[in-house]
């Protein structure tokens, strides 16, 4: 009893101000200890990390791809034009006046006038019906004005409004917007985005299972140690802690691996994409994951690792309660 009181006294003498420091030092020690344990088994650790990295790289890579396609379709919107087909009784003179008037519109960069003769000869040379077309007595084509909106007006809705506004003029028969297909493309992208989210969810579950199972094996391997720690008075939280940190490390390294894989894939794809873009006389630098997406991958992966080990630890530890 005497020794007991003495030791109790000694323990109580730790200043309360130092407790957070001790706590932090302990956590740091456990975190580094878990890391060291993982690094001492590089093959097993590498396998688990690789599985997590590949599982996460798949949705992350698809996300990056969709993001780039999205940016691409936005740039297509910027080059969208509105074609105004004028009524048949509008002559060239009136059309020029309208063009001049529209040119002053602040949402329009450029207005191009295509006369019926121009259009007809173009049609002739493009379609191969040149001979037939010259046989026509009267030109059946109306005057067409091509409107080039300013680049800041790139949302489909704004373009549509502009087209509707132009259509209200008496000289205009109808307006046609060349963005229909861009919108369809964007709708498909939206769908693909959903698909990637679902895939991401499924693969996140897979990561949970991988981490959970790895931690379960680790717990089995260290049963003896866990039991002894319990016998000498370690709290359940203390026993859980290294496993939670191990899960956290798996998540973090898996996330880093996924990030590197996606970055590598983008670098590898950039060459062919640049060559393709050059064929269309444009440039298309691929956009990387960006800070937000990168942090989401790392943070999400870390959380998955922690959650996976937490679930596993909850299931496979704490069985040593006295009956």
């Amino acid at each position: 009893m005497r020794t007991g009181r003495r030791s109790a006294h000694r323990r109580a003498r730790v200043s309360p101000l130092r407790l957070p420091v001790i706590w932090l030092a302990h956590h740091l020690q456990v975190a580094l200890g878990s890391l060291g344990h993982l690094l001492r088994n590089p093959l097993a650790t590498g396998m688990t990390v690789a599985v997590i990295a590949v599982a996460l790289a798949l949705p992350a890579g698809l996300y990056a791809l969709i993001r780039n396609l999205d940016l691409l379709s936005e740039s297509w919107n910027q080059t969208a034009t509105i074609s105004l087909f004028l009524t048949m009784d509008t002559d060239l003179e009136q059309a020029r006046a309208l063009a001049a008037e529209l040119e002053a519109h602040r949402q329009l960069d450029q207005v191009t006038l295509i006369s019926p003769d121009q259009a007809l000869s173009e049609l002739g040379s493009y379609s191969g019906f040149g001979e037939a077309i010259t046989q026509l007595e009267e030109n059946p084509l109306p005057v067409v004005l091509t409107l080039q909106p300013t680049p800041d007006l790139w949302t489909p809705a704004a373009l549509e409004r502009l087209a509707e506004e132009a259509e209200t003029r008496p000289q205009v028969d109808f307006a046609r917007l060349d963005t229909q297909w861009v919108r369809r493309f964007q709708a498909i992208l939206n769908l693909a985005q959903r698909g990637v989210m679902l895939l991401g969810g499924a693969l996140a579950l897979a990561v949970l299972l991988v981490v959970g199972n790895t931690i379960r094996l680790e717990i089995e391997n260290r049963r003896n140690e866990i039991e002894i720690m319990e016998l000498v008075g370690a709290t359940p939280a203390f026993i859980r802690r290294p496993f939670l940190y191990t899960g956290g490390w798996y998540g973090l390294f898996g996330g880093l691996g996924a990030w590197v894989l996606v970055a590598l894939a983008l670098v590898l794809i950039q060459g062919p994409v640049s060559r393709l873009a050059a064929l269309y006389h444009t440039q298309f630098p691929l956009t990387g994951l960006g800070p937000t997406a990168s942090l989401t991958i790392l943070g999400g992966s870390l959380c998955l690792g922690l959650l996976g080990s937490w679930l596993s630890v909850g299931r496979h530890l704490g069985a040593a309660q006295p009956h």
Partner: protein
Amino acid sequence: MIRFEHVTKRYPQRGNALRNLSFELAAGEMAFLTGHSGAGKSTLLRLIGLIERPSRGQVVVNGRNLGRLPARKIPLHRREVGMIFQDHRLLPDRTVFDNVALPLVAASYGHKELQRRVRAALDQVNLLGKERTLPITLSSGEQQRVGIARAVVARPPLVLADEPTGNLDPELSREIMGLFERLHRVGVTLLIASHDQALISDLPYRTLTLAGGALIKDTGTR
């Protein structure tokens, strides 16, 4: 220090390992627990260490009623009870130092205090200088001394030993008993299970004898 009141421990399908057992052990007392194999010695020690709970009756240790102790307080209870096992229960992949340090690590001792206490405990069992060795390279007697150092390193007021001399020759057994007597002299309460009659009868300590889970003989404090 320890009080058993009509304690029965029943294992499903195995019947009663302990039957209606009552006894008291005062603080600072040293006692042996003996009886044939299967008499319930280990079960009794497990109840004190709260590895098992009684089926009926009360086990009171250090003023705590163990049957009612909430699960979250079990670790604190175990820190005040040093346990020694026949099979040592050492971690084969940790050095002697790390094995002995386990109870201090579990109780979040600071680095300096931990170093000091582990050294003191190893000195007590005459193993200073073996800190960096792995348990498998030690003899059985040395391993048992490592187990004892681990049990006393946090200076618990109560030490339980289950067949601590089971694998040892008479000379080593007496050496281990000498260690226990030293602990007894500084005020530690000790309960030692053993069926080594020759060893026990040589020593002037109280002996509790179990048979079939019941207390059949108690020499009383000598």
